């Protein structure tokens, strides 16, 4: 009965929740993050002045006017750009084809045996931890300067990415068809083929389209480290400070990448 007066004071019957007190832990975390940010910014050369000097830098004049004669010349931009796409296509096709069996090995649901699962998984985790361009630098030095080294690097990269995405899809697949197939006495590979594959294949196609998108973007920059394609042109022009040409190239890349992304998005929506 002692509660009755307070109920009357709150006509809706709801008790206003108390504002949670500021905890010491919250303050400490915030302070820690702030300290980390200040330290990191100092170490990476933070200057307030640079926000002003960025805009007043005389170099901006070098970006304008765009050298359209250079950019629209077929040999300078279009041909390397075509090579860029060829690298992306080759790397995507090989990488995605390799990823199909590896993904099934790397999912707990469909792996043939425990050791395979552990080995494949750890190898793939390590490969994925290597940034794509570092791999490209090493492979270009190891194999050859030009498109070949770049294509190998991107193949490894797309394999690692697709395996991760696709094996997670397989993990979440319905295990019952697989159990049914195994119960009828099917071999492991046949059971996986009949019991899991049909369910996850659309996701494979969708993820492959996404990997292609990543590869298109990566193949643009892979030339900066000697991997062939349009990046090589950008790197060469950068060394001569021809930013007017670079800006033109970037505009062309922008238009094409945007178009590819739209197409890939469309395919993904159609399939999924």
């Amino acid at each position: 009965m002692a509660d009755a007066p307070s109920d009357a004071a709150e006509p809706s019957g709801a008790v206003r929740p108390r504002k949670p007190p500021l905890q010491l832990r919250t303050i400490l975390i915030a302070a820690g993050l702030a300290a980390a940010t200040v330290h990191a910014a100092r170490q990476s050369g933070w200057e307030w002045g640079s926000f002003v000097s960025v805009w007043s830098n005389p170099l901006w004049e070098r970006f304008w006017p765009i050298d359209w004669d250079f950019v629209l010349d077929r040999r300078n931009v279009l041909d390397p750009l075509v090579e860029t796409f060829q690298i992306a296509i080759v790397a995507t096709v090989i990488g995605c084809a390799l990823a199909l069996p590896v993904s099934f090995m790397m999912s707990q649901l469909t792996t043939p045996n425990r050791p395979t699962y552990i080995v494949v998984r750890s190898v793939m985790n390590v490969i994925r931890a290597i940034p794509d361009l570092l791999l490209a630098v090493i492979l270009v030095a190891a194999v050859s300067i030009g498109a070949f080294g770049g294509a190998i690097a991107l193949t490894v990269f797309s394999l690692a990415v697709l395996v991760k995405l696709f094996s997670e899809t397989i993990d979440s697949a319905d295990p019952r068809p697989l159990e049914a197939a195994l119960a009828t006495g099917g071999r492991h590979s046949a059971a996986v083929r009949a019991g899991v594959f049909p369910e996850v294949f659309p996701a494979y196609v969708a993820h492959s389209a996404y990997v292609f998108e990543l590869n298109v973007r990566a193949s643009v920059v892979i030339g900066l480290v000697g991997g062939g394609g349009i990046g090589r042109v950008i790197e060469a022009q950068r060394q001569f400070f021809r930013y007017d040409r670079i800006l033109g190239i970037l505009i062309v890349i922008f238009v094409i990448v945007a178009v590819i992304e739209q197409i890939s998005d469309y395919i993904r929506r159609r399939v999924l």
Partner: protein
Amino acid sequence: MTSVLDETAAPPGTAERPPPPSSRWWRIAVAVAIAVAFAWGYSGLGITVDQLRRAPGNIWTIMRLSWPPDFGTVIERGAIGKVFESVYIAWTGTVIAAVLSLPLAFLASNNVVPRWVRIPIRQLFIVVRAFPELILATIFLAVVGLGPWAGALALGIASAGTLGKWSSESIEEVPLGPVEAIDASGGRWLSGVRWGILPQVFPVIVAHWLFRFEINVRASAIFGLIGAGGIGGEISSQVQFRNWENVLAVLLMVIVMVLTIDGISGAVRRRILAGSTRSSSDANRELLGNLGGFLTRRRS
């Protein structure tokens, strides 16, 4: 939530009847198209048979030459400091991007602002995202000079594009009940955003920030290749002198760095999305789980 219900419930993703398989002709056509594209791509790369034959041998030689990794020399050259520099670049870039993208994300969401505000900001995100970080870094190198600061700025701008897109997508999925309540009690537009939307969506946005930080760590490891600071510079100079033992040592350091950051950041991300066990209701956690689910799709 009894066990009987659990067993009869369809597992996630299979609730709808799958569409009938496509016809055989369609499949053959797709296979032929892929084969043709591959042949066209391959023919353009100018790969000689000789190159192809020698490649496995070359790669094997490099692998043999790089064992055992020579940590002593690279550590003497200050590689550990450069690893940390890479992490600092990534962190600074992420903070810049977070500060830039948070207000922009709200201004790009269809449940916050009218169409004429939203569309241009959306377009801005698309334009920024179209340029790879490394290309932006080459431009910033020209403007602020060689060094980590160019990398941090490039990451800041590039990440602001992706973070803006992801955050505004999350903001658009939020239930609008609280905003209506604030409107009904006479609150201003800003109060609606601050008290109606932000508390619902902030954990997800922070998770996006952390996820982008993980990507940025990989990106900043690359920046050194073009002189924008961090560990990448060490890799490219060791590769140029063909000191393969040193290359492997640096590469292993990069791998350890990336895996460590991924581990820590991933754990924090999951903790943030799951919410504290004390304060969040099951419904809330389920919502966050759904929103967070789309994060894993973007993992690369």
